Structures are given as structure tokens and as C-alpha cells.
């Protein structure tokens, strides 16, 4: 495997090529403003599932709203359980040595570290990101009483550098007591308001695509799964606290130990498909399918397993790229138990920003490869 090199596996016979030519011609002459209205049923379903997950809030350690959204979106035949770490489990298939898929529920954000006498909030980060992207933006403080609006106050000094001094949030109060009366307390989580928004073609933007796309793909795979084809048990896990150290997955790995056959982390392939990125590696273009996340900062997938994954994709005519990127994945914490981690992702632009960009075709491709692996590998 060479870093960042893509291996398209979808072949084109003559008929398919002619159809593609006709479609390309149609798209070229038809007004773009009509395209979204003509989404395929697959893209429409993908958007429907993903948008609901993206618009749920769940900073690391406070994933309950996202977990409930996943449960609501699953088909009725799926039985779930939640473990003491907050991970959501769904087991399907016959008895035997299971395969595990794991996508994380949590998103980056902040937590209230202190409430100042002037009513403003001191923050601590949950996960890694550029704090400047939150500076001078609307804020939401998530409390048991509901979401409290505020603003991330802009800096009043250090204007010569990119990164801000520590951020604080202004909820429009002038005293600690007034802030506490809103239901805000130390430990309350804080994010920005977010929306799923379509861009041109099949692309979309929002915040927390990392890893709501993985969550959505697992939901979509379960919706379309042919249970009669399962030869072994398959466990789908939606994990907690990935962004702060893979903590939920560690609990799952400790529970399952050496008893599982293989783990597939379903997480972002951070793509260098952007004019701002170095092209040295991670150049998986968006819109060309899911990505075998073969080497990252936490795990290396044995090359033979990458080849097997490529063969599954080829057999099912699923678009799959192969590459290497940065970041860790939940599957890596299973490897000390002798479990091979075959991480699968999808290309994402502008990771951990309020403006992440995906192509919905890649999300559908990711769901397809999960389903194919569950049914046939």
C-alpha cells in the first residue's frame, strides 16, 4: 500500500460506460439548481439519517442525545443495550466468533470549567481543534433545563496572532447567581449551533460529520442488512468519548477481550483534498467512495486484510479508495487483545471545524461496504 494512492475498484463494462456518458451529458446540460431535487432514493435516505444525527448534540461524555437519535433511526427488529460506559450495542446474526463495527457518538466541544463573578463561563476543551474557529461565534450551553444561548466572546487582546487567548462564553448575565439560575453548572457542555446544509451536487456541510457519518453508515447498513446471509455474529457499537482518548471503545474491548474475530473502526478519513493541505498523503478525493484507512496514528491494518477488503468491495461493485491519514481510531484499542483492526472511513474535508464537507455518495458507499463486509467476510 502506498500512502494516499487511490485504487478505484469499480470497473465499467460497455453498457455502464454508455449510461455514464448519457448521465454526464444530462448533468452537463441540465440546470444545477434542479439536481438536489432529483436525489436518488439512496442519497435521500442517506441525507435523512445523517442530517438528524448531525443536528443532535453530544460533546464527549454527554452523548445521550446522539445515542437516542441512533436508537430512533434503527429498524424496529434491532435490539439495543447501553453499557455502563454509555456505549450503545446492537448484536445480530447467529452464534460464533463475532465481528465488531464501531463508530463513535461524541463530538468535539467545551465544558464549563468555572463560572466567573461577572456571570461569564471559563471553558475547557474536549478533543483537539482550533479554538479560533469558535471565537466570536454563537454558543449553546447544554443543561438539564435545556439549551442556553450565549456567545463565544471575541478576544480583546493578542490581535497579531491566529490563536486566541483562552475563550470564555457570555450568556448575557452579569453575576454568577444569574448564570446558575439558568441551569448552568460546572461540567455543562458547550457547542455552537449547527445545521446540516446541502452544497452543490451531492455535497453537504455541517459540524460533527466526524463521526456522525460513521454512526449513520452503521444505521444504514443495518436497515439494509440481509440477516439470512450472516454466517457469524456481528456486533455494532456506537461508542462514547472517542475524542478524548477512545475511552468508550476501551471498555468494549475489555469486555470482549480475545473473543472476537475482527474489528472495523468506522471513522473519518481526514482528507487532504483541499488546496490548503500538503499532498504528501491522505489525498482521498471526496465523491470517490469510502476509504480503507490502512495506516493512521493509532493502527496499521495488515496488508492482507486491506487486500481482502478491496476484494469485498470489488465483488459487490462498491467504490473504495485506499489510503493513509492522521488521527486515531476506536479499533486500535482492540489490537492488544490480538484482534485485527481493519478501519474504514470516508473522505472528509476541513475536519474538526464548523464547516466540514462530505459527499453523500461516499456515505452511501461506506454503508454499502459495511453491509457487504457483515454479510460476506
Amino acid at each position, binding site marked *: 500500500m502506498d500512502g494516499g494512492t487511490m485504487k478505484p475498484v469499480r470497473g465499467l463494462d460497455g453498457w455502464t460506460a454508455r449510461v455514464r456518458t448519457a448521465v454526464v451529458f444530462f448533468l452537463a446540460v441540465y440546470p444545477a439548481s434542479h439536481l438536489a431535487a432529483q436525489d436518488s432514493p439512496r442519497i435521500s435516505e442517506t441525507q435523512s439519517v445523517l442530517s438528524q444525527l448531525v443536528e443532535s448534540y453530544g460533546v464527549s461524555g454527554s452523548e445521550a442525545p446522539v445515542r437516542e437519535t441512533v436508537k430512533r433511526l434503527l429498524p424496529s427488529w434491532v435490539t439495543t443495550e447501553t453499557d455502563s460506559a454509555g456505549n450503545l450495542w446492537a448484536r445480530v446474526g447467529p452464534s460464533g466468533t463475532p465481528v465488531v463495527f464501531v463508530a463513535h457518538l461524541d463530538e468535539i466541544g467545551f465544558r464549563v470549567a468555572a463560572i466567573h463573578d461577572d456571570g461569564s463561563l471559563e471553558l475547557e476543551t474536549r478533543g483537539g481543534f482550533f479554538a479560533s474557529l469558535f471565537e466570536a461565534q454563537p454558543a449553546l450551553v447544554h443543561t438539564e433545563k435545556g439549551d442556553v444561548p450565549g*456567545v463565544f466572546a471575541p478576544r480583546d487582546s493578542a490581535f497579531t496572532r491566529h490563536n486566541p487567548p483562552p475563550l470564555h462564553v457570555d450568556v448575557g448575565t452579569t453575576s454568577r447567581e444569574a448564570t446558575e439560575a439558568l441551569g448552568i453548572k460546572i461540567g455543562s457542555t458547550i457547542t455552537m449551533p449547527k445545521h446540516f446544509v*446541502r452544497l452543490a451536487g451531492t455535497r453537504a456541510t455541517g459540524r460533527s460529520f466526524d463521526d456522525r457519518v460513521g454512526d449513520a453508515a452503521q444505521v444504514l447498513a443495518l436497515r439494509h442488512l440481509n440477516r439470512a446471509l450472516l454466517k457469524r455474529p456481528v456486533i455494532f457499537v456506537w461508542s462514547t468519548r472517542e475524542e478524548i482518548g477512545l475511552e468508550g471503545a476501551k471498555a468494549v474491548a475489555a469486555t470482549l477481550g480475545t473473543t472476537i474475530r475482527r474489528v472495523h473502526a468506522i471513522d473519518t478519513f481526514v482528507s487532504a483534498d483541499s488546496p490548503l493541505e500538503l499532498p504528501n498523503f491522505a489525498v482521498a478525493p471526496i465523491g470517490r467512495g469510502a476509504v480503507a484507512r490502512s495506516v493512521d496514528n493509532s493502527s496499521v491494518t495488515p496488508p492482507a486484510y486491506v487486500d481482502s477488503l478491496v476484494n469485498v468491495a470489488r465483488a459487490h461493485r462498491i467504490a473504495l479508495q485506499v489510503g493513509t491519514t492522521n488521527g486515531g481510531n476506536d479499533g486500535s484499542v482492540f489490537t492488544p487483545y490480538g484482534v485485527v483492526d481493519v478501519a474504514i472511513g470516508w473522505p472528509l474535508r476541513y475536519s474538526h471545524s464548523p464547516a466540514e*464537507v462530505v459527499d453523500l455518495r461516499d456515505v452511501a458507499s461506506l454503508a454499502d461496504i459495511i453491509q457487504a463486509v457483515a454479510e460476506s467476510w
Partner: protein
Amino acid sequence: MTRLRLALFLLSVIQSFRRLSAQSPLDGLALRFASMTAVTGFEQAMGDSLLRLLPGSTRDRAGSVTLTLGQGAPKRLLTCPLDEVGYVVGNILPDGYLFLRRVGGGARLAYPLFDQQLEGERVTVFGARGPVSGVVAVRSTHLTRGRGGPGSPDPVFTVDNAYVDVGAASAAEVERLGVAVLAPVSLTKQPHVYGNRLLAAPAAGRRAACAALATAVRAKPSVQGTVVVAFTTQSLYAGNAGLETVSRLLGPFEETKTVSLPAKYPDTAVETVDLSAAEALVKELVTWMGGR
């Protein structure tokens, strides 16, 4: 797609509308104005809204919307600048990314990091076929790891760093969206209400002041002499052309009053105005028009 985007945009501000519209017509109007974009020199759409809102108003050759109340002497001018510092598309790259040119700003800006607010955020491009959503590219956090240690340069983001991604993969696709050079661009407006009637949005102070003026006019106040009400354009570009044009075409005026409101976090995406102050301003303006 344009309708879908419009629907999504409306959904994005509906919570704030609900929170405010129950309180007063002024609050609802301030929120409505704060959700609009009027890049200096490109105020046409907001002018259209004002013309519909204020029966009898007209647009002059500089784009300002004026309405004459009362008659006779004294002749006074009551004005509110409706424009904002923003951007236009400066270039469209072959791979579908857009570059921007800032319009207005410079020394007028109270917030030195005005352009940095674009980075990694959603923007709206106002194309010929309607608003088009986009984002401004930012480096992925993960891909910066291990590529710069302590002491690495930390330069602020400027508009020259702004690659706008509308989801297009080619210049031709951008063109099909109705986007061309000179299309106005702004941060996507998502007015945000917090605290006790605090409205946060880009240019919230100006928009709330203009809402106060429109509310005062719609209250049909008694007017001493003649009062020309003007929502002016290009106040943030060379020469304040909108106000100068009104003065020359409809003046001279014995007195000119420009409405404004104090704002917290000025020139940021969360510029904050207290709508209680806007309400007090309405009363003040009604009194002023009556000559009291």
C-alpha cells in the same frame, strides 16, 4: 435547490424568531433585518425589502431608500446606514473554489480580526439564481499534527487566504449555480438571541437601529415640518455616497440625525445589541419627528 436552501436558512433562524417575535414587532423586525445581507455597494435586496415595508418610499440613483413625511419647514433628515462590510467574489478557480475581495472595512473596522472570522465557517454567496451556501476552507486539525512545533509562525487569517468551497468541482459547475465574479458574499446570517433581549449577529447594531427607525415610521407619528427618512447605501465606502446623494437631491436640511445604537463586540459575527435600547430609540425618534 434554491428553494431547499432558502427553507434550510429559514429553519436556521426560526428559533430566534420564535424567541423574539412573541415580544414586539420591533424585535421581529430587528431579527429580520439582522438576517439580511447588504454588502456596501450591493444593498439592492435589502432596499427591495424596505420598499415593500414602507409604502410610499422610493429608491434614489445611489440605491438609498427614502420616504418624505410631512411638509413645509423645517426640513430635516433622519437617516440610517443599511450597509455592512462584506465581500464579493473576486475570482473563480478551475477546480470550483472561489476567491474573495473585501468591500469596505480597513481602518473603519473595530475588530482587527474581521477577516479571520471567515475561516472554517459557512458563508452565503448571493448569485444570480439565488443564495448559494458555501464554506471557507480551513486546514484539517488532524493533518497539522507533527507539522509545526512550538515557536511555529502563527499568522492571522486574511481574506487572501480564503478559499470558498460551494461544493462545486469545476468553474463550469460554479457558473451553473449562478455565481459569477462580483457576487456578494457574507458570513451566513444566523441571528442569535441570548440573555434578556440581546441580539447577536453581524452588523446587529446597524440593523437594530434601522429597525427602530422603520418601526417609528410605521407608527405614523405626527411630524413637525418635513422629515426625510433615508436608509442610505455605501456609508462604509469612500465618500459615504448614499448620504451625500440624499443631501444633494433632497436637501438642504436644517438638521440631520443619524440613528445608531451602542453595540457590544462590534464588527464581529456576534456583534450584540440590546433590543430594550432599540425600543427606547423608537420613542426618541417619534419624539424627534414631532419636533419635541
